[in-house]
């Protein structure tokens, strides 16, 4: 039991390198090992959730060194929630992966699977660590794996990813500089220890600088408007599997790190009153929601539309931070899991369509509803969830955010959430309408289909790709219906520091 915090990232890290060697001998062995490793870590994460619910938080000291000096990993309700989400999405995607990877990036499988495990190890580490410097290490491990996974896509992917690398490195640098300032003024890196020492130093200029630098750095990594410019190209040109893995969880983990700083390192009052960071984040989120949704409407490439919609959706999480009241932050945190399920599902659906028809342009999707009925059922569920129709998961996070806005008395935020739901309705119903239209007779489509415009010879996606997509669609419904359990058991204890 007490080893759980180390076992989750440990298993993933071990898997990554063992799978690399197994993959050199035979690719399928590497794949089998990766599935096994990620599956194991998912099971351990679930055990972690039950352990936390029964026994309270688990604190783990690496190498037996005691906290102020040693590194501490903490499994509390919030981090248990995050690692379960990360490993769960990871497991779904790894089951989905082989067919799609073989189709989109042939010859790269041997390195693809270990990189997925490495990415998950990094993200799980970020969620579990109780040490601000250790968090930087893990965020960079995850980022390096992500660069590799994203760059093997289209011909234009390397350029887009190189830009992401620069943004990411600058973000990491800002964060590290902030950690340096914090260490300089407080003399410790442990989060719990920092939380005790910082209140005396609220007026210290280096602590203020540290907070600003750390939030800016993480904001860059989470694609907080207006620092989102790297994101659309990267998700657009990436392989479907990478986008389906990284879009759901990568930016969310940076948002989680900001929440950690907000709640557990600096006291909430510091971010709200001493330094109005939450107010700023909230208004940036408003910008991101509107810009992301409007630009998503303008796109005709399915993947690019999803990428812009990600900019809008991550801003909901930021909006939850910006509201800085318990119910609003619960909405933001719940949106992490909701959006992960929805966006993962949508990107994987894009992969299914691409495998069978080679299409990425929405205007040519006509007739897909008949050719790939089950994939499109999943798409309908995910699209309804993105718009926020009950009882899908997307409704409830927006509902909590609305309640939070009312609590805060901020009617502009309230209006923005409503308006952006309508905007997402526009861009998703546009696709739905196209999908369920009759396929045009051969020459009716614009310019005459060069690669098989109207006729979709492929039919439904193979089972290995269909089942994960349907599983995510079912998860969207289940999380929606049972969201009260998640909120009561995991998220409410997590936002307790705000209620004081």
């Amino acid at each position, binding site marked *: 039991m007490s*080893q759980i915090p*180390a*076992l989750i990232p*440990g298993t993933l*890290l*071990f898997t990554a*390198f*063992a799978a*690399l*060697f197994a993959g050199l001998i035979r690719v399928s062995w590497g794949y089998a090992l990766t599935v096994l490793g990620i599956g194991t870590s998912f099971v351990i994460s679930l055990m972690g959730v039950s352990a936390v619910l029964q026994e309270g938080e688990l604190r*783990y*000291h*690496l*190498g*037996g060194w005691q906290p102020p000096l040693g590194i501490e990993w903490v499994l509390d309700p919030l981090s248990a929630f995050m690692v379960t989400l990360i490993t769960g999405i990871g497991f779904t995607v790894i089951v989905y992966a082989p067919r799609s990877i073989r189709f989109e990036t042939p010859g790269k499988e041997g390195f693809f699977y*270990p990189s997925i495990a490495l990415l998950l190890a990094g993200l799980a580490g970020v969620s579990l660590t109780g040490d601000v410097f250790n968090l930087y290490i893990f965020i960079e491990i995850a980022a390096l794996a992500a660069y590799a996974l994203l760059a093997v896509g289209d011909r234009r992917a390397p350029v887009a990813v190189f830009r992401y690398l620069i943004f990411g490195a600058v973000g990491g640098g800002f964060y590290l500089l902030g950690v340096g300032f914090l260490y300089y003024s407080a003399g410790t890196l442990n989060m719990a220890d920092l939380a005790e020492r910082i209140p005396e130093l609220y007026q210290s200029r280096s602590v203020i600088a540290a907070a600003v630098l750390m939030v800016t750095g993480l904001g860059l990594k989470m694609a907080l408007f207006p620092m989102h410019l790297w994101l659309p190209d990267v998700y657009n040109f990436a392989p479907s599997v990478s986008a389906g893995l990284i879009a759901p969880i990568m930016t969310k983990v940076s948002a989680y790190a900001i929440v950690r700083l907000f709640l557990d390192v600096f006291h909430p009052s510091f971010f709200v009153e001493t330094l109005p960071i939450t107010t700023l984040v909230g208004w940036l989120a408003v910008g991101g929601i509107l810009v992301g949704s409007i630009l998503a409407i303008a796109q005709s490439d399915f993947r690019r539309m999803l990428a812009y919609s990600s900019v809008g959706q991550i801003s909901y999480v930021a909006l939850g931070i910006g509201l800085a009241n318990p119910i609003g932050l619960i909405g933001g945190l719940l949106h992490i899991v909701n959006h992960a399920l929805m966006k993962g599902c949508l990107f994987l659906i894009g992969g299914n369509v691409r495998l069978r028809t080679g299409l990425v342009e929405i205007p040519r999707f006509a007739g897909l509803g008949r050719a790939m009925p089950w994939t499109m059922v999943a798409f309908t569920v995910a699209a309804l969830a993105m718009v926020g129709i009950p009882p899908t998961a997307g409704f409830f996070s927006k509902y909590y955010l609305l309640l939070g806005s009312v609590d805060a008395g901020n009617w502009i935020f309230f209006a923005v959430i409503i308006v952006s739901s309508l905007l997402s309705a526009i861009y998703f119903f546009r696709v739905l309408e196209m999908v369920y239209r009759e396929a045009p007779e051969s020459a009716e489509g614009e310019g005459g289909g060069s690669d098989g415009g109207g006729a979709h010879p492929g039919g439904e996606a193979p089972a290995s790709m269909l089942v994960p997509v349907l599983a995510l669609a079912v998860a969207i419904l289940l999380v929606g219906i049972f969201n009260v359990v998640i909120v009561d058991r995991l998220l409410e204890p997590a936002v307790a520091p705000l209620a004081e």
Partner: protein
Amino acid sequence: MSLRFDSGLPEGLAGSAHRGMSRTYHSLFVDVVTKAMVPMIQVFAFYVIFHGHYSPGGGFQGGVMLAASIMLLRLAMGQEESFRRFPPDWGMLLAAGGTLLFAVLGVLPMVFGGNFLDYEYIPFLGAEAATRRYWGILLAEVFIGFLVWGALVAIYDALSGGGE
């Protein structure tokens, strides 16, 4: 000049590119100095690695020096010769192998009831707790050295297009 060189210098010191991209210039001095320097860099790198646990230095620093020695070979001798001495696949293998061994070393204490990386719990590293920690840290430094060595060479090869 009647000196003999094992890398076939007769076409002169002027720098012909007849071996293609692999070797763009020739220099007697570079060849001789490289051959003298590389073993010394490597010996010093191993010294840094093996004394890292009780003096300045360690796996990272030593690994960087080992990688630097390979990069010197690559720069001075061209791909053909240096790939014979250090094939491009080795970089990735060393990096992954080093990390894997490090992960095993980290997990071993958990098998014997300790925390991750708590070398005190590995029974076969010595009789006393301090001795076990000593050997544990030394082994960790060695594995880190290998992984840094391999990773940096792999990055160099990838950037110079050598791994293709």
